[in-house]
């Protein structure tokens, strides 16, 4: 008995610890996958910690492929193909439609209705067809969505004696400003500072009323003058105006992140990239910067949106818990306030109207005003047109090299590829019907 007593004690203690552990352990563990890593990942961790503190029974395990965004898609698709998808994932609108079309994520229309999630609570344009829904059914809530603004280097504007751009400034103003800010400082015949960085061409096409696809017919619109004029305009910023560097020249300034060098006057950027990342990098130590409206083209002032979505995978064992987490992240004041504080892609309309978002402490008064004011006049890429992303990457992008180098005019290049572009759109449209 004397020998048995300590053994019984150990067993009893072990049993108690096991029971206690089981009682203390969360009832459910959700896996959540997003591509926010580095600084953005640390900020997102704050959001997740807020959830964990409030919901001890629903643990969140975040999965983020190491490195860059490029590996995210591969990892996610491989997990799905392997039968082990995460419960909640973030999708890039470039390829989210594929998920909706294949119905691999849960339709949330009834949940939205049940819990009375108000679409009007989100920033304008963040709820639209093509961002989080397919074929009239809703699959995702907005996440990590931003709009396009013009980043400006205030020091360069001041030095050139140019006023900061206001709502309604024109494309012609843009060129004139860029010319004034393009300078050869040491007089060696080589430009040292540039008016503008190499452009993402999409917003410019929309400034001019152009589009990649005729949204009514589903056919390509890349040969229309509204489209080709702006491609030519961007090429000419380098070839004729010399206010924008060639790829080689730009690489000499910085292989990536050229806007952070202080050698560019203006550059197309994302609102929350500028505010959040520039703040994290303490960019003001290097130069004074700001956020401006986009120049108005023939259709007047507009902006341009890029959406991302958060969805629940169909294979989840915990659809209700996943929905609760996703809804909290996307709609709760608590989560959105953390994103506002860190200026990292808040999606709620209420959040972006807060003073600390509009005029972030330590930055500039009314810094985010262009982002907020431009939001109601958003244009979107045709993500919801079947085959568009493939036609864009496979056919359009390679054809641009000849325009940028001046070997072909934009009209010639687009005329040459239009049939192939349409062929992909047609094939995908037929595949959808099948």
């Amino acid at each position, binding site marked *: 008995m004397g020998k048995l007593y300590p053994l019984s004690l150990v067993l009893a203690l072990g049993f108690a610890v096991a029971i206690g552990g089981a009682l203390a352990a969360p009832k459910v563990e959700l896996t959540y996958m997003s591509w926010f890593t580095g600084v953005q990942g640390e900020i997102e961790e704050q959001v997740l910690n807020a959830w964990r503190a409030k919901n001890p029974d629903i643990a969140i395990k975040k999965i983020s492929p190491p490195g860059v965004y490029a590996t995210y*898609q*591969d990892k996610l*698709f*491989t997990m*799905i*193909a392997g039968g082990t998808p995460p419960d909640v994932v973030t999708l890039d609108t470039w390829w989210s439609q*594929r*998920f909706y079309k*294949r119905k*691999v994520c849960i339709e949330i229309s009834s949940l939205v209705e049940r819990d009375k999630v108000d679409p009007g609570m989100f920033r304008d344009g963040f709820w639209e067809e093509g961002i989080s829904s397919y074929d009239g059914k809703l699959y995702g809530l907005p996440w990590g969505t931003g709009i396009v603004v013009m980043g400006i280097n205030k020091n360069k504007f001041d030095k050139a004696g140019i006023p900061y751009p206001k709502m309604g400034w024109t494309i012609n103003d843009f060129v004139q400003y860029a010319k004034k800010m393009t300078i050869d400082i040491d007089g060696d015949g*080589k430009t040292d500072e540039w008016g503008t960085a190499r452009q993402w061409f999409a917003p410019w096409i929309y400034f001019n009323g152009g589009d990649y696809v005729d949204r009514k017919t589903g056919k390509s619109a890349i040969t229309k003058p509204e489209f080709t004029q702006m491609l030519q305009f961007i090429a000419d910023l380098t070839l004729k105006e010399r206010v924008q560097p*060639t*790829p*080689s*020249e730009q*690489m*000499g300034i910085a*292989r990536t992140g050229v806007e952070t060098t202080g050698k560019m006057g203006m550059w197309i950027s994302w609102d929350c990239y500028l505010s959040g990342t520039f703040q994290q990098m303490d960019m003001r130590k290097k130069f004074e910067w700001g956020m401006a409206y986009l120049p108005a083209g023939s259709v007047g002032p507009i902006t341009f949106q890029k959406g991302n979505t958060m969805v629940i995978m169909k294979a989840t064992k915990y659809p209700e818990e996943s929905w609760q987490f996703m809804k909290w992240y996307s709609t709760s004041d608590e989560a959105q306030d953390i994103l506002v504080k860190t200026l990292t892609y808040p999606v709620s309309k209420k959040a972006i109207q807060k003073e600390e978002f509009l005029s972030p402490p330590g930055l500039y008064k009314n810094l985010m005003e262009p982002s907020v004011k431009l939001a109601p006049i958003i244009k979107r890429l045709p993500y919801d047109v079947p085959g568009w992303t*493939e036609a864009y*990457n*496979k056919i359009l992008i*390679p*054809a641009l*090299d*000849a325009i940028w*180098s001046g*070997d072909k005019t934009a009209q010639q290049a687009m005329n040459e590829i239009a049939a*192939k572009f349409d062929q992909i759109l047609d094939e995908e449209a037929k595949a959808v019907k099948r």
Partner: protein
Amino acid sequence: MAKLRISKTALRENLEFYLFISPWIIGFIAFSAGPIITSFSLSLTEWDLLSPPQFVGAANYANLIFKDDLFWQSLKVTVIYSAGSITLHLSVGLVIALLMNQNVRGILAYRTIYYLPSVVSGVAVSLLFIWIFNKEYGILNYFLSWFGIKGPDWLASRKFALPSLIIMSLWGAGGPMLIYLAGLQGIPTQLYEAAIVDGAGVWQKFCHITIPMISPVILFNLIMGFIHAFQVFTEAFVMTSGGPGYATYFYVLYLYMNAFKWFKMGMASAQAWILFALILLGTLIIFKTSSRWVYYEAERRR
């Protein structure tokens, strides 16, 4: 009785043989054979990873061969690259090996230095060459400027992008060099002594002794170079993304794009099998023609 003993020995040897190669066999079955068979079955389907594969028969093969211009463009680019890079590899590798075969002071250090680039990661080399080929700031154009030549925008020019990558492939010439060197050191010196006695010059010795004696090594380097060149990927992926236009759109880059950008796994699998067939065919042709120009000393003796 003697027969039984031999059988026992043979049995033991067989057992030992299979025991020693079993790690490879197990690895092959577990990690290679399955994916190989699966990739063939996938090549007969339409599969985007998100929903179950749909059987489409030989449609992927037919679409690639008869409808897809980019398939033929990528094949053309790969064939040109292979021809250029293999020729450079074989010739420059041999020249370096001949130099490294000299009996001079510090030759071991030189051999190491020339081989070192071959072990550097392809991505690192690609990033390095992006700078070397930069029009404005690259060392290559700086060097050309000494001779009054204004160098082109190597990687941005449709005319020069592919030749740039062919030139860059020389970076790996250390690999064939090392194999050539082993071959050169295996040539009996009495052959050269006899040739000198017969009055042969340097060129004659090279053409009639060196080349025939190392022809099996040339064959090996040719086959390995051919297989490697047809699978080139990293350079285009990191440096040019297949551009400008489709000037450096290599076959394997297109395969990767189909698989991991557009998630056409069936199409990509079909491409992989076509590539396998092409490499197999090319290798068989090289082997078949090798009897005309490869000299095997052992065969001669038989």
